[in-house]
């Protein structure tokens, strides 16, 4: 039995410690927001936060999560209030087919919540965002509107602080 925190709640699963965290989230916990795009850690569609850092959940053995904290896309919103990056992805047109979107939302939430572009002028900030999100592949958008969304969310969050 493996016990760990998911989106702020203690969860317990019966699974082999070798089972991928991605599969435990989707199958045992029925949190299907986290997606599988490649199984190799290349596409980032499976991105979750593990102890507050973005990781590919297809490369985490669930045994390693015992007594640790995982945040998935389902944990970004607070009740009915979307996270700033989620709102911005909608208003800026940063989601098209949407399959990469949860992974991007999770990774971008880390960028925004940690203030990783606070005080960085926009032109440079766009390059920083591109580097930080380079582990998330999107085939639909060409990335531009996603960068717009992350900058928008970051500036909104900075202003509110």
């Amino acid at each position, binding site marked *: 039995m493996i016990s760990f925190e998911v989106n702020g709640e203690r969860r317990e699963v019966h699974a*082999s*410690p*070798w089972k*991928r965290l991605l*599969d435990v989230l989707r199958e045992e916990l029925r949190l299907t927001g986290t997606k599988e795009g490649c*199984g*190799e*850690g*290349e596409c*980032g569609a499976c*991105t979750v936060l*593990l*102890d507050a*850092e*973005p*990781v*590919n959940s*297809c*490369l*985490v*053995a669930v*045994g*390693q999560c*015992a007594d640790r904290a995982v945040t998935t896309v389902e944990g970004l919103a607070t009740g009915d209030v979307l996270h700033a990056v989620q709102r911005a992805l909608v208003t800026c047109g940063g989601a098209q087919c949407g399959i990469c979107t949860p992974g991007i939302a999770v*990774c971008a939430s880390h960028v925004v919540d940690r203030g990783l572009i606070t005080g960085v002028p926009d032109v440079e900030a766009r390059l920083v965002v591109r*580097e*930080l*999100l*380079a*582990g*998330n*592949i999107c085939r639909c958008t060409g990335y531009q509107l996603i960068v717009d969304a992350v900058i928008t969310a970051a500036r909104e969050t900075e202003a509110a602080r």
Partner: protein
Amino acid sequence: MTEYARPRDIDEALAVRAQHADWMVLAGATDLMVTANRKAVPVGILDLWRLPGLGGIAVERGVDGKELVIGAGATWLEVERAAVILESSWRPLALAAREIGALQIQARATLGGNVGTSSPVGDSLPVLLALDAELEVASVRGRRRVPYREWCTGYRKTQLAADELIIAAHFPELGKATHTTWRKVGTRRAQSISKVMGAAAITVEGGIVTDARIALGAVADRPIRITAVESAVRGVPLSLAPDAARAAMRTAIKPIDDVRSTAAYRRDVAENVVARFLSGILS
């Protein structure tokens, strides 16, 4: 079902390792878990992720002055954010860390993993060679140090014994006259496998190259020091060193064609990269 052990400290980890040589040693798992669902299920997992005592990045007093010690469990994200590395001539470690995969990989991949897997395209490995790192490994039988230049014994083969774990890498202090540098040429700007990458530590005194350690990856079955080039530039004025390096590079490596690139390209680019290690100091 796969067994699982999460030791509380290094000694416990060594005990488990000694008892279960067939268990998979897992830290960041970014290599070992690729396509995990189609791999053979391990009989057991020895989980070293965030093992107390195995992480850490610090400058300590060593035998010959200061040394940088990076724990085998330190992630590349920690390395690239460590001020003590960024603001020093150990900086190529941070530069290499930043180009390993992407953020999600850097947040999990560890120095110990890179060193243990010993892939010919392991991005940090030429840096360990150029910075003349020394590995600290341990088992229940005791601890030992291995100069990293002696570590790789073949294609993905190292000196690590079946009951040993990698504990840390030690990097000697470099003098002010030593310039260090790094370059990766991959398949794209991020999340890329290297076609050619390397690192160098070049000591220049009075305009003359007095010492050179030049290491390349992705051009052989293991990371290598290009001793032919090192000899060619030692004692040479820095202004003439890039050309001397080019000449020596022409016969120094035997890269291969593979699905990602060609031998001809690797040879060309390796020559440019190595020459730039030297000419970059001039500017």
